[in-house]
């Protein structure tokens, strides 16, 4: 570590190298820390979490009871021990609360004045954070599994919505219209995701085992469908032609730079695809246990050198190296199934939520103290003992007698 610092100071190394080495060290040492916890507000399982992009300070969570909570992740108290407080909640007593479970929440990508939530009560609501009232409500014919706003869009403000219907609806925030529809899937759409690299590219995953990539400016249909056999028709059974998985595809995640797309399916596999050509990179992650009937929210680390994919696997979170497929570690701590996880890129922290109503914060482990520091603290403890210990102080006799 000191070598890296001196090299950076002398200009021998690129500044990015030190940053990447330290980020990697931190990402590899994620662990539960008794000093950091998140307030427990939800009474039912947590389905989704989202951390805002601008400051990385506020986190939204949506629960199975329709409750939405906003947490403040910053530690301004000065203590090492910190519980992330809930700033405000859209609770059951709120007039506009969702009737059934909230499946997806997402902050508006440009400021925290607005957030969008969608739920199994067939509505998607655009909330004003200040007043906690919905500014707009979109209604649909089927349960809404997933929605996503493009994090980089400048020319459009579309929300892609995946519902029980096989068509994907694009709702426009500016005008409130919902006439743009993408047809092509044959079963319910479990997950939708905009590319973080190109603002018009959208990927959608459906229960018919297919993943389609669309350019929303194009009228004629999807750009391509991901094929797990890369066009080699001889590999699988003939029904498996053009499918991304041998079961329902329920999780989608782009890597930070948008060059690769990860998909997870109920066939217990996770696949890595080249997002420009749709080619299966054939990285073998082994069995990634997946039983979710709804969408699975998983995430990729950003800024470290072997990027890690954090996937909820039953009651723990599995971390795989992105390009080699090896299982790096399993983060155990939840008492029940984990449904969602989100990575905080600035502090290399991971937040995961699950059916046990807890949000756990996984923080990089602190460095072990050096030998010199330990002897210094031992000296201090010895000095303290000369002052009177509190057990011998007179705390009960009053001054009157």
């Amino acid at each position, binding site marked *: 570590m000191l070598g890296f610092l001196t090299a950076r100071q002398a200009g021998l190394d690129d500044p990015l190298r030190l940053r990447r080495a330290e980020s990697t060290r931190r990402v590899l040492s994620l662990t539960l820390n008794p000093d950091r916890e998140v307030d427990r507000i939800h009474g039912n399982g947590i389905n989704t979490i989202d951390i805002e992009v601008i400051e990385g300070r506020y986190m939204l969570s949506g629960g199975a009871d329709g409750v939405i909570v906003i947490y403040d992740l910053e530690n301004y108290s000065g203590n090492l021990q910190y519980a992330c407080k809930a700033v405000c909640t859209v609770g059951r007593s709120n007039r506009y609360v969702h009737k059934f479970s909230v499946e997806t929440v997402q902050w508006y990508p440009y400021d925290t004045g607005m957030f969008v939530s969608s739920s199994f009560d067939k509505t998607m609501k655009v909330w004003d954070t200040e007043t906690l009232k919905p500014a707009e409500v979109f209604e649909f014919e089927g349960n809404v599994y997933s929605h996503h706003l493009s994090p980089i869009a400048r020319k459009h403000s579309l929300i892609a919505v995946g519902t029980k219907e096989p068509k994907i609806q694009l709702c426009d925030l500016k005008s409130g219209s919902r006439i743009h529809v993408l047809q092509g899937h044959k079963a319910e759409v479990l997950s939708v995701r905009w590319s973080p690299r190109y603002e018009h590219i959208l990927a959608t995953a459906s229960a018919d085992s297919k993943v389609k990539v669309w350019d929303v400016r194009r009228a004629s249909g999807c750009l391509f469908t991901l094929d797990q056999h890369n066009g080699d028709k*001889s590999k699988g059974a003939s029904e498996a032609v053009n499918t991304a998985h041998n079961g329902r595809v329920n999780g989608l995640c782009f890597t930070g730079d948008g060059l690769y797309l990860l998909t997870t399916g109920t066939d217990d596999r996770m696949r890595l695809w080249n997002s420009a050509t749709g080619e299966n990179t054939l990285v073998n992650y082994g069995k990634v246990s997946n039983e979710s009937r709804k969408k699975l929210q998983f995430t990729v680390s950003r800024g470290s050198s072997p990027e890690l994919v954090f996937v909820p696997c039953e009651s723990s979170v599995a971390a795989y190296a992105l390009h080699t497929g*090896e299982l790096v570690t399993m983060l155990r701590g939840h008492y029940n199934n984990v449904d969602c996880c989100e990575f905080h890129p600035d502090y290399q922290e991971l937040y995961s939520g699950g059916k046990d109503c807890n949000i756990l914060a996984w923080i990089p482990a602190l460095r072990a103290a050096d030998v010199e520091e330990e002897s210094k603290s031992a000296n201090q403890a010895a000095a303290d003992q000369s002052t009177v210990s509190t057990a011998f102080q007179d705390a009960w006799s009053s001054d009157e007698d």
Partner: protein
Amino acid sequence: MNRKRALISDTFKVKKRRNETQKFGAISDGDGPTDIRSTLEYLMTLFPRKLFNDSLPQIVMKHQLYSIHNDKTLVDKELNKLRERGELLMFQLGFDADAFGLVFTADYKAKVLAGEDGRPTRATVERFLEKLSSPCTELSFSKDKILKEFLFTDSEITQLVKSGVLTVRDAGSWWLSIPNSGKFTKYFIQGRKAVLGMVKKSKYSEVLKAELEERRTTSHVKFHMKYHIHDIVGAELVESIPTTSGTLLRHVES
């Protein structure tokens, strides 16, 4: 996996390597380049040839290699290289979408021709095997391909199916297959179920690998115990946990 020490990225590892064994009970991974071919040959020795009266070539499952080598993607890449060189053939065995059988091409050809001795279909099968020697990386063939590229006629295709080299996949396409492999599949599935049952019935559903290898096998388990153990570990039907007394196999609830 429980790790007693925190993970350190390669860039931060100290240069002095202390002589301590951090992983206990793990199979020797070795620091040299992984040799898939020698692992394949080792696994082939576990295949019982006498059971089938020498009529079958030695078959190894692709996922058995995953139990020996840690890096699955590397294993896949090496296998593809061997297939492209024409040394290895891969078959879709049919009972599981992910279970692929591997046979050395030389072995396969020898056994198939030996099985065809004296039969009228021998000539067609020989021709088909010739076509296979140009590196064949496909698992199935469609009717078009056989008629046009391989220049076989319909009746010849029927002969190939009768001799067992092709099996029906769906109307108009066929899987490449190993003749007389039905018995193999049956014993394999039976043995797998029996071994998994042995692990499940143990106390806490876990068994030390060394102990499992020593156990007396029932009449259902016809293959070598090690063959089945590599199979269930590689297919991730049991979790392999390193402990101080060796590797522990724990049944995974799914």
